[in-house]
């Protein structure tokens, strides 16, 4: 079974301010975008990040071949229990998801 990393150009995650994190899936081609935008479900992303479904916002952007996920940071950036100040590892986790 392929992981998301095998199917797309790159996955990048970054804080969107201290209280949210945003994860961009750059598919790299119309074909990859068509496949991934169908195969990658909100449910799978919520399970991966431990999120209630209503907290996930998704943008499918065909012009850029990008799927973007925005969500609250369950642990606020830089708070005592934060483990990843810039939030980039959320992208690594998503890259490894089996599609």
């Amino acid at each position, binding site marked *: 079974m392929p992981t998301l990393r095998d199917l797309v150009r790159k996955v990048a995650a970054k804080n969107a301010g201290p209280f949210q994190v945003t994860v961009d899936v750059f598919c790299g081609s119309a074909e990859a975008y068509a496949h991934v935008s169908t195969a990658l479900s909100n449910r799978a992303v919520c399970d991966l990040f431990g999120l209630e479904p209503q907290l996930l916002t998704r943008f499918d952007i065909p012009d850029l071949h990008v799927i973007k996920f925005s969500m609250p940071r369950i642990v606020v950036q830089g708070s*005592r229990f934060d*483990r990843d100040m810039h939030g980039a590892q959320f992208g690594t986790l998503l890259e490894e998801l089996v599609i």
Partner: protein
Amino acid sequence: MQTTVLVPSGVLGLGFSQAALDRGIAKGCDVIAIDGGSTDSGPHSLGTGRSKYSRAVSKAEWRALMQARARARVPLIIGTAGTSGTDTTVDWMYEITVELAEELGQNLRVARLYSGQEPDRVISKLAAGQIMPLSFAPEIDADTLQGMSNIVALAGAEQIQAALQTGADIIIAGRTTDTAIIAALPLARGAHPGACWHGAKIAECGALCSTHPGTGVIRVTFDQTGFEVEPMAPEAACTPHSVSAHMLYENSDPFRLYEPGGYLDVSAARYQALDGRRVRVEGSNWVSGPYTVKLEGARLVGYQTMLLAILREAHYVANAQAWADKLVSVLSARVADQIGLATGDFSIELRLIGVNAAMGALETRESQPAEVGALCLITAEAQEMADEIGRLANPFLLHMPLTEDEPLPTFAFPYSPAQTSRGAVYEFALNHVMRLDTPMEAFRLELSEVGTRADVA
């Protein structure tokens, strides 16, 4: 009328190509604008009011920009000076500027825009119903506001325009939106508002919107219908894809960007390649709304001490989580018994490097590493108390066996002393907007003449 803004890089301290800067100056600009910070590196700069950047590096880069400004004879603006844009980091940047003016023999009018907020102002705005929470905002009341180490409001274009109107050569602004320092002048000169904010968002990280992010310098030209963007390093190119993709960056909604007094909507924007390295954008919309500014605040959480032990023995590597759980429970009981602290007055956390230190409970991979780092983070209300708990933890972190009927292990301590005092720990404590009656109501401008009149730049 066209207005051209030169953006040397995404932030002062990150570096830029001097040749690209020179090229930008030679091509001409009406203002040079650079960001000086962000919340990216966490709440510490806001909490302490200190810059996270090297003073020497900041001064070296600011010197190059002050020299470029003197050649171009245009204003130079820095926003969010000194990482967090507190009043003390504005003064830090001002001090560097005064030194450089002397060293370069420049005579300058310098405007300082202060964004720091007295808790009392915010408390009275809260009581008047003029503080609104944004998504996932922490709860606040008068007491939590009073207890914050620093509160800043994010200035928009209006406050930067007020500073420009003083005729200042250099503007050192406290916390501003990343875009306001770029959008302010073209907006004041009547360029298309949607284009001003959109072009500012595209250029705010310098050459990150191009094929060669490390080259820094970007030139944006605004007019009545749109904007054009071009990287100043010859090897870099802006393409419709590199430019439009930048709206995704650090932005939870790729089509909307909220600013003081409204929001930018780029859902109808059209991106056109003018040639191999320049892009023109039209069709972005600015939607006016109530005049609000975003607030950021940091509060002191406590003081930390950290220890690091390395587990190399296979038995402990394989059972690292069970060992860590036992250690936290043993240490917590000892702190209660021997130091006499209540459970809520301290915390002891063990993060296992090689197991799940970055992801915690979200980690999906399992592996058998050769070794595991046990990072022990102790937080208490005073540094001396955190250090005292660290001294109590030390022998257990070094020797605690998994079960009572096995030999005493000795783990690796990588240095002496084993514990490090981390100092004060802060948290972001505001994600709110504040309604203003007039844009300058919550901001303060100070004007100074610096340098020696005898020497002309």
